[in-house]
């Protein structure tokens, strides 16, 4: 336990804190200390485990708090020195409290000296309402009388607790205002009555603080709470971000009110990033090349300039590659950006590579850790995975990696193939999903889709499954589409050797395609086409019509030749192929699901064929024009020559 003031500051009487001050300061200290859980606060934690059991207050949040007091920088430096933090190297509770009192002194215009804290002082005022505490403390200012004081403080305490809850819920400014309302004209110091009241309170409750403080007259500035408004906003964001980041049991008190928090990587996040790093680069001590990282981060769907900026921030040594801490920083920035956070001007201190390397020991690359992590995530991911599996085709994967990845963790390697993005935010959202999704574990083994990355998965770089590259100009006509549909179901139905009539002469369009066509698959189609063409020609699409009319126009040197050529081979092969196609039909018939699949594939093929045909059509039109021109040229020549010959 620390007694009195820290060595540097307390040469005089022990540090006496009033009841309210004790509470206020302890709250503030808890906040500052909580933020230090990430390890930013060096110094023996045991020294600080006084009252609140918290570690030392981190320099970062403490500095922010001090800045919020709106004192000039030199004053703050003086205060820091005086309170002994510089000397001992950390902000223990003693130092912190002394510093707060010094701030109060400075704010009331007293010189920053040790003696200042001996007299009664108002509570320090902090304009950035990061800590509701201060603002509230501004209020007890209006202590008009001892008795009034006591109930006031009580209500304050209550509101204090309430505020703490609301802290997380972003409703700070409204609550501030009522507290702040009593206008404060700086009341003269009323030492005696107040001290009396304070001492009463003090004796009332026991707090493990360094000594109680003499009563003082707090000063209140109503603008404190009002300025809490803008201050509340960043808090709000932080709160939302942090909530989104934290998975259930998260470290919410740590991530509360400090602007650094969004840039602080939590353990889960860290693990996740590390896993992602591993999926990209097995060796954790080496780095990810620029192109690999680029592809990876591009999947996050952020704009290129933003990604470029994030890279610029995170690649500290500008070597075009990301080491693990750089990667984590970049990932964290991306995640933050996706959650709506504006990108910082510079790399936040908590994201510096040295900091990251120091703060987090090299992750244990053992399966146990991974499994535990993945298990926690897997449940979340399972339902998503299921959904994704259903919605997206297997081909689509390659999304931003998902923590789920492998339920059991064995398929770490498979992860590399199945990279889906799961923002931690999504994970946290998923945490609520029922555990029965575990049954789905078996399925997503190959491909796992992350939560929100549903949409992302859909949007992500991966193209929709490209149609099979089969150059199936199967159908020259739209009719063929119907033909296929008709044919397949009918074939099984008939079951007879319903051979398509031997392809007499397939219509001209067929041959033109068949130039490019591949054989066997098409031939049966071709065979069907003529048959159907004969039957259903009137019902066909315009394509088929456009082609026949274009034919007569063509001089068809080539097309005709080709057509004849194609006709013959197709005719010849048509027979055997048609027979071959008939045989599988009975088997198809047996399984209706296969039929459906076949129909669907046929539909797809038809569509492809249609596309191909359309293209062909345009090409042929082009050829037609050229031929026309040639013809005209030739005719001109002929006419020119004719008179010569005649003559």
């Amino acid at each position, binding site marked *: 336990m620390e007694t009195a003031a820290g060595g540097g500051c307390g040469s005089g009487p022990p540090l006496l804190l009033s009841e309210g001050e004790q509470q206020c300061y302890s709250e503030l200290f808890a906040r500052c200390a909580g933020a230090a859980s990430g390890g930013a606060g060096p110094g023996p934690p045991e020294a600080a485990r006084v009252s609140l059991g918290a570690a030392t207050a981190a320099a970062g949040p403490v500095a922010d708090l001090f800045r919020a007091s709106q004192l000039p920088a030199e004053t703050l430096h003086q205060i820091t020195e005086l309170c002994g933090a510089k000397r001992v190297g950390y902000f223990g509770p003693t130092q912190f409290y002394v510093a707060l009192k010094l701030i109060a002194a400075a704010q009331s215009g007293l010189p920053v000296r040790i003696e200042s804290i001996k007299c009664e002082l108002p509570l320090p005022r902090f304009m950035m309402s990061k800590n509701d505490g201060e603002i509230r403390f501004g209020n007890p200012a209006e202590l008009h009388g001892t008795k009034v004081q006591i109930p006031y403080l009580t209500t304050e305490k209550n509101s204090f607790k309430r505020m703490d809850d609301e802290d997380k819920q972003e409703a700070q400014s409204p609550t501030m205002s009522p507290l702040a309302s009593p206008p404060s004209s700086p009341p003269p110091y009323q030492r005696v009555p107040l001290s009396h009241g304070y001492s009463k309170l003090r004796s009332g409750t026991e707090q493990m603080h360094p000594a109680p403080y003499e009563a003082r007259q707090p000063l209140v500035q109503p603008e404190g709470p009002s300025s809490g408004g803008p201050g509340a906003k960043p808090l709000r964001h932080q709160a939302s971000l942090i909530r989104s980041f934290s998975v259930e049991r998260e470290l919410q008190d740590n991530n509360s009110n400090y602007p650094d928090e969004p840039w602080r990587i939590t353990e889960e996040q860290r693990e996740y990033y590390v896993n992602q790093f591993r999926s990209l680069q097995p060796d954790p001590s080496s780095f990810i090349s620029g192109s690999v*990282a680029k592809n990876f981060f*591009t999947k996050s769907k952020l704009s290129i*300039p933003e990604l*470029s900026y994030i*890279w*610029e921030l995170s690649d500290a040594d*500008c*070597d075009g590659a990301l080491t693990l801490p750089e990667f984590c920083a970049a990932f964290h920035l991306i995640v933050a950006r996706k959650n709506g956070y504006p990108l910082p001007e510079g790399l936040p201190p908590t994201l510096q590579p040295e900091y990251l390397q120091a703060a987090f020991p090299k992750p244990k690359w053992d399966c146990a850790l991974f499994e535990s992590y993945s298990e926690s995530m897997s449940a979340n991911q399972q339902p998503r995975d299921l959904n994704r599996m259903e919605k997206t085709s297997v081909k689509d994967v390659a999304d931003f990696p998902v923590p789920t990845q492998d339920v059991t963790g064995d398929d770490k390697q498979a992860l590399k193939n199945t990279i889906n993005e799961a923002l931690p935010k999504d994970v946290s959202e998923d945490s609520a999903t029922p555990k029965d999704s575990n049954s789905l574990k078996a399925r997503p083994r190959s491909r796992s889709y992350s939560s929100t990355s549903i949409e992302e998965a859909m949007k992500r770089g991966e193209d929709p499954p490209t149609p099979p590259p089969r150059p199936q100009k199967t159908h020259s006509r739209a009719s063929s589409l119907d033909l296929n549909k008709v044919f397949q179901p009918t074939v099984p139905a008939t079951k007879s050797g319903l051979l398509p009539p031997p392809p007499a002469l397939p219509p001209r369009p067929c041959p033109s395609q068949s130039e490019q066509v591949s054989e066997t698959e098409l031939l049966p189609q071709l065979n069907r086409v003529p048959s159907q063409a004969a039957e259903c020609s009137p019902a066909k699409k315009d394509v088929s019509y456009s082609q026949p009319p274009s034919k007569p126009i063509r001089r068809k040197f080539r097309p005709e030749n080709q057509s004849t050529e194609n006709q013959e081979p197709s005719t010849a092969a048509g027979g055997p192929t048609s027979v071959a196609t008939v045989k599988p039909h009975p088997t198809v018939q047996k399984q209706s699901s296969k039929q459906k699949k076949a129909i669907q594939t046929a539909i797809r093929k038809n569509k492809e064929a249609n596309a191909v045909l359309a293209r062909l059509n345009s090409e042929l039109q082009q050829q037609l024009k050229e031929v026309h021109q040639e013809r005209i040229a030739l005719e001109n020549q002929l006419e020119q020559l004719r008179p010569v010959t005649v003559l």
Partner: protein
Amino acid sequence: MVHTSLDVVDEKISTMGKALVDQRELYLGLLYPTEDYKVYGYVTNSKVKFVMVVDSSNTALRDNEIRSMFRKLHNSYTDVMCNPFYNPGDRIQSRAFDSMVTSMMIQVC
């Protein structure tokens, strides 16, 4: 005006021929009678050209200063290049780069 200076730079490069090892070129010639300004050229090994136009009212910058400026420019440019998201040819939007350039310009002015 910058384009004409680019032409001159190309001319210089071609005349240099094989001796392209020499990175630096200090072209101090485009000094029009009316608008007095100087154009400095700098070529990197990858044929990336930096052209700097300086107003002559600014009492002439020394050669060394120009060189150092180009060097800094080159360094910042390589940093920008390291960014895989940067497509060569795009307008450079790197804040670090911009800040470096601005600081350089302020220093000169």
